[in-house]
């Protein structure tokens, strides 16, 4: 029985694959990696004066960072394009303005020459300020170009010393600008303020924050992050939803990103042929400190404004994203060449922020659209109207027995009638 099921499943899958292949030629799908898709990683290392402090495994923070970098450079996968940027490495003076511009590319993002990179790291000596914001901006520029995943790993031992440029907002702007850029932060022997700032930077881009107290923790974490960058991931396609369905962009199956400001709505259009099923899911990311209660609503609406189906989600407390989805199977049509229906997708959110938190750029929105073949329909609650269980057997036996009795009596009666005649 199982074999048969599997066979049938295989045949179905083959058929589905064939039909889907005809319906969506490979070129029309979005989100496939193309050409220059090597993952890029930029390690941003704080070389400020405080890195001289001897509190990691008995050595200086700088020594720990150097040792970790050497091990990471040895373990970096072949396909990863790795670069190193420093902050506070060159200017030892007290002039704030100069000190806050002090960031330099130590090793350019590209194919890795391990020896050369190690030599460059060896020359570093703790020197100046901690201009995290400007360093992140430059680091993002270093990673420009290519379609692969991009990751910045920021290793710092102090909070930013170059206010008022808030590195958190810088990170958010970088994320809004580029696609698929993640910033992971590592704090060396952190204090409370630093933890907050570094985790704020990480959360702004969907990255992670880690506190490091020992050299091996640092090595393991950076290695883990570089490996994570090497994992192939579908890169979303940037799109821009409209304020109304009429002007909305038409989307095909794929993965899309967009930004949605607080209290605003985004519209997209999807064409669904009769006999196809639309599947859409949306995730709205909370990339800054939001108020504890929030919600997301995704509606599928006809062009005339009638709601077909909706997906809603609400939550409270700490979260990275809030997501919901919907499914809309469009029934087969009796007419030949029935036109595709345009379904409008509306995304709204009820996130809010405390006064004083910047509301631009908007929250990151990730939208998955799948138009698959074959809507599903059902005529009965039970599988093919079949039954199961002892009550069913009892009922059938009773019915059969009564039918048998009746038939027996009938036949006896008929025989008796026949005999008397």
């Amino acid at each position, binding site marked *: 029985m199982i074999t048969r*099921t*599997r066979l049938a*499943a295989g045949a179905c*899958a083959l058929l589905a694959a064939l039909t889907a*292949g005809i319906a*969506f030629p490979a070129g029309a799908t979005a*989100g496939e*990696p193309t050409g220059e*898709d090597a993952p890029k990683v930029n390690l941003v290392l704080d070389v400020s004066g405080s890195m001289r402090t001897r509190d990691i495994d008995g050595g200086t923070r700088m020594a720990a960072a150097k040792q970790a970098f050497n091990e990471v450079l040895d373990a970096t996968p072949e396909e990863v394009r790795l670069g190193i940027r420093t902050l506070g490495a060159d200017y030892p003076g007290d002039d704030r303005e100069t000190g806050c511009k002090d960031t330099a590319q130590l090793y350019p993002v590209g194919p890795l020459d391990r020896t050369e990179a190690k030599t460059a790291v060896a020359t570093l000596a703790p020197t100046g300020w901690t201009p995290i914001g400007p360093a992140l901006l430059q680091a993002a520029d270093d990673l420009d170009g290519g379609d692969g995943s991009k990751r910045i790993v920021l290793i710092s031992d102090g909070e930013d010393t170059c206010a008022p440029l808030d590195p958190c907002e810088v990170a958010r702007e970088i994320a809004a600008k580029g696609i698929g850029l993640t910033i992971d932060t590592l*704090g060396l022997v952190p204090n*409370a303020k630093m*933890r907050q700032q570094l*985790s704020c930077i990480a959360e702004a881009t*969907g990255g*992670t*924050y*880690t*506190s490091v107290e020992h050299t091996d923790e640092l090595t*393991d974490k950076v290695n883990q992050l570089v490996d994570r960058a090497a994992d192939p*991931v579908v890169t*979303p396609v940037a799109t821009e939803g409209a304020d109304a369905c009429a002007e909305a962009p038409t989307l095909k*199956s*794929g*993965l899309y990103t967009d930004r949605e400001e607080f209290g605003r709505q985004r519209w997209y259009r999807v064409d669904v042929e009769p006999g196809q*099923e639309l*599947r859409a*899911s949306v*995730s709205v990311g909370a990339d800054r400190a939001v108020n504890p209660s929030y919600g997301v609503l995704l509606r599928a609406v006809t062009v005339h404004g009638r709601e077909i*189906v909706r*997906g809603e989600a609400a939550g409270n407390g*700490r979260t*990275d994203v809030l997501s*919901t*989805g*919907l499914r809309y199977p469009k029934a087969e049509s009796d007419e030949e060449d029935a036109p595709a229906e345009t379904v409008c997708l509306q995304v709204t959110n009820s996130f809010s922020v405390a006064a004083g938190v910047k509301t631009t750029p908007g929250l990151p929105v*990730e939208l*998955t659209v799948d138009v*698959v*073949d074959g809507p*599903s*329909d*059902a005529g009965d*609650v*039970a*599988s093919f109207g*079949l*039954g*199961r269980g002892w009550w*069913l*057997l009892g009922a*059938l*036996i009773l*019915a*059969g027995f*009564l*039918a*048998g*009795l009746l*038939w*027996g009596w009938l036949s006896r009666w008929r025989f008796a009638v026949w005999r008397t005649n």
Partner: protein
Amino acid sequence: MRFTRVLGAAALLLGLAVSPAAADSSPSASPSDDGGAPTEAGTAFRTATEIEQGQRATANGSAGDYLYWSFPADAGQRPTVKATVRLPGTHAAETWRIDVYDGLRRRQACQYGAQSRTAAAGTSSVELACVLRTVRAWSEPWAYDPLPGTYYIRLTAVNLPTSDLGVPVSAEVRVASKDAGGAAAVDGSLAEPLVPGVAMNSGADEEDSERGAVLSAIEPDDGWSSGWWSDRWVWTGIGGVLAALAGIGGYALTRGAGRPGRVPPGV
């Protein structure tokens, strides 16, 4: 007549013996060894690590990370997600939580299990569990019923003091399911399981698949069930046979020995 009776009794016995066995023999997730179990977790829906049911997946992360895994669940299964978080020696009280989402990223309710739990200061681990509803082969588009496809697990600390942000933790998740068999079999099935990106995957050629960059390439060990098989066929079939036998029995009772065999012709 006697032959019929013996045959009937034999069939009845056979039917009774077979039916419960057949009812429970539908395929279920067999626990596999942990040799190839993933040791990393994703950090978003897009990067969720794919695990199989029965695997013990582990991951190292930092307190405050959002860890994601995904697993396949097929019709008739009732998945149970269990997670253990190992915390460092010293920490303040913190609350951990697992959330399960379906292939459309809709949050799925847990029937029971400690979905969220607060680890008191200094405890070394916290255990979480979530028992989902039984996955149905089909449901109306307006319903939030669990459907066959990809399921996402998100593990995170929801209440974390700043002093514990970024502290290394390790997590372990395991998904096992109980097979509901035909009791949960409904009419209808989805044309495609709720696997994100399924429209893109089937459009891509074989040569593209080796790049591995798909939203979800998840599939149960023995493929997705086609939806037409359920043990209801066995039950109903046996019911039919038993009804026929009972009918013969009833007929035999009332008809008596039947028309005498020695009735001379022409009477």
